[in-house]
């Protein structure tokens, strides 16, 4: 906790300076509301925010879950079949340069305003970091360990189960950590294309009504949601791959 103290202090001071500045210069609330005002706005519209938060969260969770399954499937396939890897790898790299968000209007055209186009967008955004990290994890397995297993007469299946899978989990989780933040972002932005509920919609509506304090409150909630998603992944990782965090820890 101690090592975060200075960061925490900096955040508190920044909020304080912000508050003083807004009050001191009499800045109008629709341009820049003070932190206290934002908090009041949040508190007053908490039911509304919660109402809009639910669908965003559901979209993000389904989209991310979809991405995880697709990624595991593709990464294993790439690891297993060299030809498939050769063909697909360039597409993977190129796909990274496409901001998938720009496909949202097209998907709305095809699938309407419901859940499906949003899930697809989120999955597309999330799948790249997971796939590439998982695949790199497979590739990065210590070749000496592979030789050890070969010398023991292990089958390809055993090598996969005993070494490649566990060895690639840390990098799988780094990919998932990035993707989990993307999933919230993807959900919010995909809602902009059309939806009647969701934090993205609430954000747009608040902006159009010049409710700047509420805009800030919603931005704050979206940020917190992303942080929460990343933390959740981190906690799961610490439970599932304790050995990864055990490195260099002193024995008792």
């Amino acid at each position, binding site marked *: 906790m101690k090592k975060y103290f200075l960061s925490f202090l900096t955040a508190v001071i920044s909020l304080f300076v912000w508050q003083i500045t807004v009050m001191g210069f009499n800045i109008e609330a629709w341009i820049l509301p003070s932190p206290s005002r934002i908090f009041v706005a949040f508190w007053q519209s908490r039911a509304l925010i919660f109402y809009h938060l639910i669908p965003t969260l559901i979209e993000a969770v389904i989209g991310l879950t979809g991405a995880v399954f697709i990624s595991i499937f593709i990464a294993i396939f790439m690891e297993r079949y060299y030809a498939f890897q050769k063909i697909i790898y360039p597409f993977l790299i190129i796909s990274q340069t496409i901001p998938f968000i720009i496909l949202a209007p097209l998907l709305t055209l095809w699938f309407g305003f419901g859940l499906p186009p949003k899930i697809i967008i989120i999955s597309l955004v999330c799948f790249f970091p997971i796939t590439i990290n998982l695949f790199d994890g497979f590739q990065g397995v*210590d070749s000496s*360990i592979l030789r*050890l297993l070969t*010398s*023991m*007469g292990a089958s390809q299946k055993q090598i996969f189960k*005993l070494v490649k899978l566990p060895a690639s989990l840390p990098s799988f989780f780094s990919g998932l950590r990035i993707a989990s933040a993307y999933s919230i972002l993807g959900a919010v932005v995909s809602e902009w294309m059309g939806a009647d509920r969701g934090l993205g919609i609430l954000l747009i509506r608040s902006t159009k009504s010049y409710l700047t304090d509420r805009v800030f409150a919603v931005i704050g909630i979206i940020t917190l949601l992303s942080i929460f998603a990343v933390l959740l992944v981190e906690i799961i990782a610490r439970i599932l791959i304790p050995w990864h965090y*055990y*490195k260099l820890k002193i024995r008792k």
Partner: protein
Amino acid sequence: MTMKKAQKLEIKDLSVTFESEIIKNISLKVEDREIISIIGPSGCGKSTLFNVVSGIIKQNKGLIKINGLEEKKRQGKFGYMFQEPLLFPWLKVLENVMLGFEIKGIEKKQAKIEAVYLLKKFDLFEYANLYPNSLSGGMKQKAALLRTIAFNSDILLLDEPFGLLDAITRSNLHLYLLDIWKKLGLTIIFTTHDIREAIFLSDRVYVLSKKPATVIDCIKINLSRPRKISDQTSKKFVELEKKIISLL
């Protein structure tokens, strides 16, 4: 035809070339339940020899016989301990030692009993439930040795098995290994840079030249068994030591 018993392991005219020639016409024979050590300068090709024998690398020339029969597919036939411990960081020490059972598909319960027995015998049991990353280099090497023994092959290839250990642990481990060797009726081939260790443990010591490795000589160690640590100061022992030093 004579009915002479076949050698446990025979290496015949083995040559290996990577960019340059590493191993040149090495032949050696190992009898059942013998302990053989291989001594040679750093980088001469000892690990390469083991890699070929264990079937990880293909030789350019020569053949390898196990129990008198040529074996082309040798994976899974030896307990091979690599020069580096290569423990799996994601498995606890106990699970690492049990790896061989897992690969052979032996029942978990039985595997655990045997692994626990070995860990206790080699003073490693208190670390059974730790991850390898929290072990010292020497303890990792010890765990790797146990994993090799637990693979339950009757021929062990040990590549510098005691290299990372302190003198006391090392000499304890010599005695444990001799004990296990006798109990399980193993045939052991190991490499070392320590001449005294080679003499103390072995029935014969092969001395290799520098790269490309050839067999310079094979020294018979006619010290009676069971051996005691105090044997290392005997006249016979010191003479053998001198003889081997003169070859290197």
